[in-house]
């Protein structure tokens, strides 16, 4: 065989893989500035603003975790509050009962949701599609009832984080701001990093079609398990940070289904299966909460109806509509091949 035109070098054009785009570079710069701004909050924001931003960051983190679960892994959970409460309680027990420094206790408390997620998933993955969702809710209810019955968690009365008194208000502000920055970096930045990795490629394939992904060698079952545990830890981080700022925890607040309601609203309205969607959704939720939160129940009626309408008529959410018109992703994860000879 002397015909060299069939050799791979001649057939395949020389290409380079492009991952970043102009819009992506701009967004990444803005995101880095935003994270820096979060960390520097004590020097430009009041305590009230810091608390507000902290809550916003918690919603962002939980919503992004829900997005990973439902948007990529096909695991529609309505019980992520189980892991928020679990790590919240772990933090309170370690800091309050055992006297561990609360800021050291936060990273340790993340072990609790990670460990609990394993048996939970082992049970729940046996449930078919929609039944999985209700199963996650049962798990959250079990966690709440167990916490309400446990004497060393002070049962239904809950616990207070009085050890935080040893820090001045300014020190607490610094801690909250840094925790916000770290949380956003880990949940949103971490998701972006994960989606750009080899696993991300598999995850996106799984999002589009799990059966086809499995036929291409993606270990769907293992990936789902990994995403479930990662989401549990991410929600746990949000829970630990949120309840540290609240200084109080009790079973109904720790395992409040409201977190799931809000996460689902944020992701569905913003746009499922995209980090951009979560950012848009969080912003919309936050503005709506400021403007209409005072209306209480009727405000939640509107949130519910909006979620329903998105599921019926606009399943890709706002980001889906935007990205259909303009191809300018903020967090590009696609690999584009560019012919270097041209």
């Amino acid at each position: 065989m002397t015909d060299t035109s069939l050799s791979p070098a001649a057939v395949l054009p020389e290409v380079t893989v492009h991952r970043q785009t102009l819009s992506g570079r701009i967004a990444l710069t803005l995101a880095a500035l935003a994270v820096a701004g979060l960390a520097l909050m004590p020097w430009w924001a009041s305590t009230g603003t810091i608390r507000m931003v902290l809550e916003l960051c918690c919603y962002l983190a939980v919503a992004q975790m829900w997005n990973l679960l439902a948007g990529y892994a096909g695991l529609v959970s309505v019980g992520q509050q189980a892991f928020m409460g679990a790590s919240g309680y772990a933090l309170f027990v370690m800091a309050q009962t055992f006297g561990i420094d609360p800021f050291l206790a936060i990273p340790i408390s993340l072990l609790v949701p990670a460990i609990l997620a394993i048996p939970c998933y082992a049970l729940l993955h046996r449930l078919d599609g929609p039944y999985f969702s209700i199963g996650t809710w049962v798990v959250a209810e079990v966690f709440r009832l167990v916490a309400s019955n446990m004497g060393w968690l002070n049962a239904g009365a809950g616990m207070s984080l009085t050890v935080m008194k040893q820090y001045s208000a300014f020190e607490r502000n610094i801690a909250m701001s840094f925790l916000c920055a770290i949380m956003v970096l880990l949940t949103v930045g971490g998701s972006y990093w994960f989606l750009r990795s080899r696993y991300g490629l598999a995850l996106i394939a799984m999002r589009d079609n799990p059966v086809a992904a499995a036929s291409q060698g993606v270990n769907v079952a293992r990936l789902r398990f990994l995403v479930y545990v990662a989401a549990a830890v991410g929600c746990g981080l949000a829970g630990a940070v949120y309840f540290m700022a609240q200084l109080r925890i009790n079973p109904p607040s720790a395992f409040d289904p409201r977190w799931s309601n809000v996460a689902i609203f944020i992701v569905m309205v913003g746009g499922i299966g995209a980090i951009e969607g979560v950012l848009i959704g969080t912003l919309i939720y936050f503005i709506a909460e400021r403007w209409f939160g005072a209306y209480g129940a009727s405000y939640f009626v509107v949130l519910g109806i909006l979620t329903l309408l998105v599921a019926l008529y606009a399943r890709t959410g706002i980001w889906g509509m935007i990205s259909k018109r303009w191809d300018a992703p903020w967090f590009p994860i696609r690999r584009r091949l560019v012919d270097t000879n041209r």
Partner: protein
Amino acid sequence: MQWFDALIQGILLGGMYAQYALGMALMFGVMRIVNISHGDLVILLSLIGISMASAWGIGPITVMVALVPLAVLMGWVLQKAVLNRVVGSDPLPSLIATFGLSLALQNLMLQIWSANSRSLPGGGIESRSIEIGGIYIGLLPVIVLVVATGLTWGLDLMLKRTRFGRALRAAAADVEAAAMTGINPRQVYAVATAIAVGILGFAAVFQALRSTVAPADGGAQLIYAFEAVIIGGMGSVWGAFAGSMVLGIAQAIGFRIDPGFGVLAGHIVFLIVLATRPQGLFGKA
């Protein structure tokens, strides 16, 4: 004796849960859909019934006669307006749609009826009981159990014997093949949901008579229905019925051990069944 009493009370409680679980088993069996607003619909119907009773001074039987057709209509509208658009192999749209509906319904009820617990006056029937060998059995729970058995039996018979039942089972087995034989799946779905929600009309009256209802209670009813269906094993209405009994007994025995443990005992039995026999106690492997 104490435990035997708990067993009897548990079976009677199971009669209540069976009335929630039947509709859920039917809808999941036919459409692979779980309606998250299932429990909220029970509460909505209960509250409507309570308001009717107090506004017009009618008794519980009249309320039921009015409520069941209303429930059937609600189910039919739910299917036509919402579920028909989201039924499919992907579970996400139907879950999110009914989740949004549940959130909206719960808060709408809160607006209309406030967060207070209410109940339906039964004219003395709710407190009457019969004594058999030292055990007091409430008359109302017995009626609930009898109605639940009747509904299960009727539903099972309908699925097995009638033309519509055959169409429904065909659509459940393979939608496309069923459509080829001239069955209109959307019509079958609409009737199935109408029946499922219609049964909730009975459940709503009994729930309001037996205990109290408040707008936030729907989630718990949904979970009990779900647990009953999974414990019993999918694929048959008698499975859902038996699962309800197991759940009721677990809760009743749990309550005897410690009042704070009752509901949790039900959840634990559910998790044990899930761990050891995921196809359900009476399901085919």
